[in-house]
């Protein structure tokens, strides 16, 4: 039964990687739901399949069998072009290494996903300023990524992730490249986004401290959830 309170519904998802003739199973028959407004941490050792699962939910990788519904849209049936459009409006990405475009300013990096919307230049500016206000970086909007600290770069990346008001935020080791203080700031920010804006956050992490901030922790091992 589909539940309106679930934003992500994963049904019998399996995924293998092919290395030459070798077939490596990464995810095996995974089924679970993520509630709307959830802050979920997925933990597990390297190679357990947690990043692959995150990529599948974010629509940047294709599964072998099963289905993934995000807000009632079966993303496994979308064409590549439809999937790209869906990502632009529905998913906010937070990467381990921030993945900001080095030749663009903080403002322009945050504005980037808005180029895929029909917003006017004035509307885009308003959205970007609001997102940068949320991460407390308004005064550094004209700086390039190289002029920002790691923590600030990750906050710019979070502003970029939320600027389109996506359905879900996916974070792959968001504190993996940060010192303890910056990591704590980023996690505070993510908690605030979840609490105040009711954003659904799915975070993959090795770090138990980071996972401790989530409402729910799921452990993945050898492509299967363990109780």
């Amino acid at each position, binding site marked *: 039964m589909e539940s309106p309170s679930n934003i992500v519904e994963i049904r019998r998802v399996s995924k293998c990687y092919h290395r030459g003739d070798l077939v490596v199973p990464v995810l095996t028959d995974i089924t679970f739901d993520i509630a709307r407004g959830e802050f979920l941490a997925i933990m597990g050792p390297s190679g357990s399949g947690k990043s692959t699962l995150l*990529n599948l939910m*974010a629509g*940047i*990788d294709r599964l072998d069998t099963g289905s993934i519904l995000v807000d009632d849209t079966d993303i496994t049936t979308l064409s*590549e*072009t439809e999937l*790209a*459009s*869906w*990502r*632009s*409006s529905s998913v906010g*990405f937070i*990467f381990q*290494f921030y*993945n900001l*475009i*080095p*030749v*663009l300013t903080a403002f*322009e990096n945050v504005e*980037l*996903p808005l*180029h*895929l*919307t029909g917003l006017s230049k004035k509307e885009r500016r308003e959205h970007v300023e609001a997102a940068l206000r949320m991460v407390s970086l308004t005064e550094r909007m004209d700086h390039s990524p190289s002029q920002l600290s790691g923590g600030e770069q990750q906050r710019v990346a979070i502003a*970029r992730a939320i600027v389109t008001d996506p359905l879900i935020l996916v974070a792959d080791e968001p504190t993996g490249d940060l010192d303890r203080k910056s990591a704590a700031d980023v996690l505070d920010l993510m908690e605030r986004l979840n609490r105040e804006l009711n954003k659904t956050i799915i975070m993959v992490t090795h770090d138990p401290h980071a996972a401790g901030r989530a409402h729910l922790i799921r452990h993945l091992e050898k492509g299967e959830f363990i109780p």
Partner: protein
Amino acid sequence: MAVPLSYSFRSLWARRLTTFLTASGMALVVFVFATVLMLAAGLQKTLVQTGSYRNVIVLRQGATSEVDSGIERGKAAVVETLPGIAVDQSGETVLAKEVVVLITLPKKAGGTSNVIIRGIGKRSFALRPQVKLIQGRMPRFGTPEVAVGSSLVKRFKGLTLGSTISDSVRNWRIVGIMDAGNTAFSSEIWGDAEQVMQGFRRPVYSVVIFRMRDSAALDAMKSLIEDDPRLTLQAKRETAFYLDQSEMMAKFLTILGISLTIIFSLGAVIGAMITMHSAVANRVREIGTLRALGFQRRGILMSFLAESVFLGLIGGCMGIFFASFMQLITISTVNFQSLAELAFKFTLTPSVFFKSLAFALIMGLIGGVLPAFRASRLNIVDSLRTS
């Protein structure tokens, strides 16, 4: 929606040394391309400016240049009496019966070259108001005196005021130096037509030139001359005649230039391709990020193509900028059609400018196609994993 153009442009700026070196390679090719086109345009402009829209030139039927034309005195007299020829204040028709012969003179740079001696009539100067005397005086009719074009004075030995030009029969005394601006007359020697005909044993005129009373009446004048079975002559507007004179040489220069630059451009295109391949290789994670954010493959393709075209634009502008300095240079060569020496300048026309720029942009586009296609085909997950 497309990736913002600022991304493409700033990516070029971020690796400005590579951008500059690649653009320089393209600039060199564009320079050669533009220069050759400027050469052809300069030749054409010089010859077209030589003619006047109101003047008609009459030649023997089948003749393609003044040198291979011949008009007997009787026929010239018939042309002189035709209606429609302009008349000056003294009541004389504005018409000149001219003879054109080639003589060989030694050049200052070594070697020899053909030069046109034009035997002129009393109205020849009136027909070519652009011809001005800048030194000495006009040659007197009935004497072996000549005026020499200023371009010849610069390039040929011994063509100074008061000196003589000798052929096998007589000595021609230089009494004037004339300048006709950027026209073919600056590369000619003018003297009395009767003296030139005697001196070179030419019993016939080469051409008859006259000014039309009504410059729109060319067709009527043409039919009067060309339909008269006694004459076997042809009539052309002087501007059209000189344009024809430049056609063969201009076409040769253009074909030669384009063939050469196409060969050179292969190198520049490969240079652009290597630069763009390296740009893609260094920005795999950026490409993965853009794709994850929702930019389509087509958007990535267009973004890298735009970058490559920008590269071509920079190279094109550099090449045209340096080629524009060639306009300061005057060169001289033998015109295939008249077989005589002709001095002219490299000329940067709007057409040459746009053709050169288009050539540069096409080089950029071709150089960018494969790398841009590769960028657009990258797998998102693999790209994001790249360190």
